[in-house]
């Protein structure tokens, strides 16, 4: 089977990229192809990269508090290009009720700080397998 392709992006103006880097390395170690785009990405940059790279998954790490602005915009931009099939997941400091609102808006699962990376890996694997089974 081909490797899962994931874009790991760090939207927002804060400089806390440790989480994003740890996640990127963990996904790589789990056999995925990870495209890493660095700090301070705008939703436009994230959506453009996701579409150009034809990724299966976008993983976002947000700690700046701007999640309610940035994540819905990424979703909208992906939909505008007909790529609402891309799974948008991720995590950071996001209050429970905001997570619920975002998941209702169309993201996949969002993870709180301190979640072991293995959980995210497993979630992406399961999601991917389910989707392949569906399209096959």
């Amino acid at each position: 089977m081909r490797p899962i392709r994931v874009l790991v992006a760090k939207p927002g103006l804060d400089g806390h990229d440790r989480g994003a880097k740890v996640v990127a390395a963990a996904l790589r170690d789990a056999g995925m192809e990870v495209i890493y785009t660095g700090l301070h990405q705008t939703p436009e940059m994230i959506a453009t990269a996701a579409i150009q790279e034809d990724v299966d998954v976008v993983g976002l790490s947000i700690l700046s508090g701007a999640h309610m602005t940035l994540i819905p915009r990424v979703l909208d931009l992906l939909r505008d290009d007909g790529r609402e099939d891309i799974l948008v997941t991720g995590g950071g400091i996001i209050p429970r009720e905001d997570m619920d609102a975002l998941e209702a808006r169309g993201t996949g699962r969002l993870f709180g700080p301190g979640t072991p990376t293995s959980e995210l890996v497993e979630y992406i694997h399961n999601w991917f397998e389910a989707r392949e089974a569906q399209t096959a």
Partner: protein
Amino acid sequence: MPQSFDALIADFEAGKTAALARAISIVENHRTGYDELMTRLHPRIGRAQRLGMTGPPGAGKSTITNLIVQSLRRDNLRVGVVAVDPSSPFTGGALLGDRVRMEAVALDRGVYIRSMATRGSLGGLSARTAEVADVLDAFGFDRIIIETVGVGQTELDIARTADTTVVVLVPESGDSIQTLKAGVMEIADIFVVNKGDRPGADRLRNDIELMLGLRRGATSANIPAHHGIPLKTFNPIRIARDAARSENPEEWLPAVLGTIASKGEGIDLLLAAVDRHFRYLQTSGGLKGRRRNRLKNQVTEVVAERLRARLWEDPDTITWLDTQLDLMEAGTATPFSVADELLSRSGPLLTGVKP
């Protein structure tokens, strides 16, 4: 998102990036129907000028690529970039970080960037990269830049699929000229010594020029004296520099250029050299040769792949082979006799006409 080919191609022809990205994935993975797709795109292939960039990790290839793209954009040329990085041999995963260096053009609609992983040692990577470049070509990009890490034979092969190959070296990475792999010297149309702000850059340039000049001197020495260079005044570095500046349609001696990519210095000269090399290819017939070579390689790859698929996915063949194992064990047949027999009994299968 199952999508019929016609819809995909319609979107592709309408210039939709998502369709391009999809098409590349199909080609990269040789997904079912990839050959049909390539067939449909074939008439549109052949316009783009292809530039290969190779060199050790951290040499500044992506930084230079970013600058080249910016410069080409000022001339309104549309650019596709393929950045190939190694996959982990243990997990098959890969971390592809080249986009970080190209952030300045990330949102430019005339630029498309695609990261690719080498995916282990499976052969055919260079052919596959060339096919991805074909898709970009068919999409209408004027220039295609292929960045690969020049560490192994595979990467050199990829670089070789370009029209012009630039080898980027840096003073610090221990690539003193002695340690340069012979393959690298062979494939370079242009040498770039980047990080000119670091000590040792001038020396490295001199060393490369010396080596190129010596080589050229050696070939000249076989030419009758009145055509060649008098050995007394033989100055290899001068020879290399002069040759690199000349517009001789008969001969191309690699140019050796210095850049400081982090300050954007030297890129204009690099682009001028690339143009000069392209003109040389056009007038010398080299371009035609390279392109015909690509086609030939592609056929070789496709044939190999089809043979594999047709033979080993055929249940009858496998069953027959199993019956031969006893014979080979008993010593009445050898793997070679079995192979020959297998090929001769598979004629209809190989030609695609099922008996």
